[in-house]
């Protein structure tokens, strides 16, 4: 036990003395959170739009009013004919033009259907998509209102409601993903690098010749990173809550338990990589390509899994971060308890056990 304690103390000293490691450990999480939180936003604020109202009746003006009242949009232009559309987009200010057909209200009352055309400037396809989705949501909302009242009482009440993430605030969705990325980075990447460093410098040989058992070596290497990762989770949570006002509806105990589970997953991956890689560069490349990229791209962090082609959707199932993301989004944004997320938790535990078995086996094989 004495020797084990000495091991952990030594590990902390080494981390503490290596400035680069410290920067990655503590600087990166904060930096990433700030960048993702402030710079990369999926929601729309005050997107400038135009209207081409060929009907000019009460229904069309009600809808226009409703759209203009949304925080997402700013009604900047009233067009009089189709010919103006192209030139307005060319100026680049206006992102979307809403076109109401002639006799909009009459069509609606006579045949029960009338059409609105949404023309978006797709030079920024992502933004165009979001703007369209927003507009659709507002119109759908209006139609629902119409249907609930038999008399077309339009009113001025603008009411748009989406579940769970009312403002579709991207930072709320980013934070759980970011926790996953940072834990992968700190736990898996840093551990695999630090273990391969022992190998590269020849220290591992001495450790293996010593009476220390292999599992002591692994736990001794991994424990400091487990603690530091927990510190990182706390940091991100505090920043998210106080700088970005991300809601936290669920249980903190459950959240930390799940986080530690995910950290253990990442650590076992790190150990596994270090048993395959013989030097720090290889460990780093393998970690980045095999762990970090899928965590960012295939976990649903940035791109929704539902919109991926089927093969990628299947692959995403073996990405631990995918399950962790569902869990954390559930806990933070919906207040889900263990009864709701037990399935994802079980899958995560399964993946973790598989990786631990693999890496222990691999580590032992290498001794022979």
């Amino acid at each position, binding site marked *: 036990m*004495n*020797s084990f*304690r*000495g*091991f952990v103390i*030594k590990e902390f*000293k*080494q981390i503490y*003395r*290596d400035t680069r490691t410290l920067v990655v450990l503590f600087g990166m999480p904060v930096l990433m959170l700030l960048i993702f939180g402030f710079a990369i936003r999926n929601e729309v604020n005050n997107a400038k739009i135009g209207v081409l109202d060929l009907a000019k009746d009460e229904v069309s003006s009600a809808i226009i009013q409703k759209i203009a009242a949304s925080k997402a949009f700013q009604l900047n232009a009233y067009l009089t004919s189709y010919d103006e559309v192209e030139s307005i987009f060319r100026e680049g200010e206006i992102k979307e033009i809403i076109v109401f057909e002639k006799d909009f209200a009459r069509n609606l009352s006579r045949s029960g259907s009338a059409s609105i055309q949404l023309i978006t400037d797709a030079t920024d396809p992502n933004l165009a998509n979001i703007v369209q989705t927003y507009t659709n949501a507002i119109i759908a909302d209006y139609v629902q209102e119409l249907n609930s009242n038999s008399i077309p009482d339009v009113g001025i009440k603008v009411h748009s409601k989406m579940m769970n993430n009312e403002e579709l605030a991207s930072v709320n969705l980013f934070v759980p993903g970011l926790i996953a990325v940072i834990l992968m980075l700190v736990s898996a990447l840093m551990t695999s690098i630090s273990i391969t460093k022992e190998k590269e*410098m*020849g*220290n591992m*040989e*001495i*450790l*293996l*010749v*010593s*009476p*220390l058992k292999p599992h002591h070596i692994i736990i001794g290497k991994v424990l400091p990173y487990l603690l530091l990762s927990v510190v990182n989770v706390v940091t991100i949570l505090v920043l998210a809550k106080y700088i970005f006002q991300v809601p936290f509806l669920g249980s903190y105990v459950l959240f930390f338990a799940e986080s530690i589970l995910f950290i253990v997953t990442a650590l076992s991956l790190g150990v596994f990589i270090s048993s395959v890689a013989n030097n720090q560069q290889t460990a780093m490349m393998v970690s980045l390509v095999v762990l970090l990229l899928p965590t960012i791209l295939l976990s649903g962090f940035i791109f929704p899994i539902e919109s991926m082609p089927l093969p990628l959707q299947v692959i995403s199932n073996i990405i631990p971060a995918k399950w962790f993301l569902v869990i954390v989004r559930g806990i933070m944004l919906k207040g889900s308890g263990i009864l709701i997320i037990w399935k994802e938790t079980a899958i995560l535990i399964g993946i973790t056990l598989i990786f631990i078995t693999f890496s222990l086996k691999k580590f032992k094989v290498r*001794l*022979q």
Partner: protein
Amino acid sequence: MSNIAIETDALTKTFGDFTAVDEISIKVEKGEIFGFLGANGAGKTTAMKMLTGLLTPTSGKAMVSGFDVFSQSESIKKNIGYMSQKFSLYDDLTPEENIRFYGGIYGLDQHQLSKKRKELIESLELEKVRKKLVGSLPLGWKQKLAFAISIIHEPNIVFLDEPTGGVDPITRRQFWERIYQVAEKGVTVFVTTHYMDEAEYCDTVSIMVDGKIEAMDSPDNLKKKFKTNSIEDIFIRLARVAKRGDR
């Protein structure tokens, strides 16, 4: 108790169809300095790794400090010290911290640790640099420290894998004086080297070529047998026929 520290019988290690160590049989007496010579790639390090329990032999027999390398490697580990080619100190720790860490790994308690630490810092003349990081020390100092650390738990046998690579003759000379001191206390020293002048310091010398031991005797007897007055001469004669080049 027998007087034998290390004994192997047809010890062999193959990697796929490559035979790194080919049926070597050696006998090392207690308190002996055993020189293990060979060109690069001759199989010295592989042989040493088998004796220290880092590698499992493919076939043959080997006893180290009275324990079988196949079944009792845990007991062997407690009785041997090992200094690898890379000295294996932590560059980002101070000499003191290195001593404390490795001492701790070998199960020394706090009391023993602080005693050893004081002793080593003093005898290695490291007082001035004890708070500096090992990475900033000259190579010769690192080697001295690594050697001292490899015997911190007072093992019966110490394995040194090319301990004096890359330093000047004076530093090498000093290093060998330490080896003698340790051997005088009854510790068996098993050392690989490239330097033929170092071979002269050994009680027994074995020369390995292509995984086989081609000659093994005291330096004086070897010279008589090969009718020459330098070990280097013998080595070159034997190693010239080697088929394996540098690896």
